């Protein structure tokens, strides 16, 4: 499977569990402006030829943006997505189908960066970044 297919597989996997209230932008549909809350699937580092039959490892950076300002309500919403269980948990959503909709052999949502901020199109958003390890 291609990296692009893995990107759309990540989107499908997240949305199959977190069906409402979250917009996911796959690697082939990065937007100019964001509709919140959202996850932007960005490419991280990768490693080629990890086996003789040409498997590869790929890391995806999932940037979650929940609000334009750091309010208590927005921060609480961030926690709902960061938590390892629950209806909005990104970990639970991705762990439910580790093949990412059949686009890879295995995957693991490895870590998050904690509460932070991210600038997108001159606007600053309350955000966090997840690191998703994908094995082709």
């Amino acid at each position, binding site marked *: 499977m291609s990296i692009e297919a893995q990107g759309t597989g990540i989107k499908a996997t997240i949305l199959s569990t977190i069906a409402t209230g979250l917009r996911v932008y796959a690697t082939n549909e990065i937007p100019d402006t964001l509709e919140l809350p959202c996850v932007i699937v960005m490419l991280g580092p990768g490693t080629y*030829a990890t*086996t*003789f*039959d040409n*498997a590869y490892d790929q890391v995806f950076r999932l940037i979650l943006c929940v609000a334009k300002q750091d309010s208590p309500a927005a921060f609480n919403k961030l926690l709902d997505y960061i938590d390892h269980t629950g209806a909005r948990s990104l970990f639970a959503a991705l762990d439910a189908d580790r093949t990412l909709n059949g686009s890879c052999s295995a995957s693991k949502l*490895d870590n998050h960066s904690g509460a932070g901020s991210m600038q997108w199109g001159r606007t600053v958003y309350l955000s966090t970044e997840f690191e998703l390890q994908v*094995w082709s």
Partner: protein
Amino acid sequence: MARVAGYGGDLLAPGIIAGVREWSIDYVAAALDTSGYDGGQDKTFLAGMREWSGTFNGFKDGAPLAVGTILAAEFQESGVVTQKWTGNIYITNIGASSSVDGLVIYNYSFQGTGAPTALPTT
């Protein structure tokens, strides 16, 4: 003269075994000690019987091989047809390991039976 990158290699037995990352082969000849009282302090030897064995390992990808299986194996050092070892092997040992932040890994040991049918050249 050119060095050879390992990543261009492969292991076929006889088809590709998916997930393999490493292989190694030991091809040895027994050294038979022919030393006697008449030889002084320097030992002497004769070449004895030869045998070959080795290991390979990689990620689990499909059903594991079975211990005791005999396979027609081809250990490719590269895509160059002269850079490979071939012969029949018995799988003599299987080991598996797993970690929470990685993939399941299988380690295999094998014993060659008969002579290698091809040895690598340049």
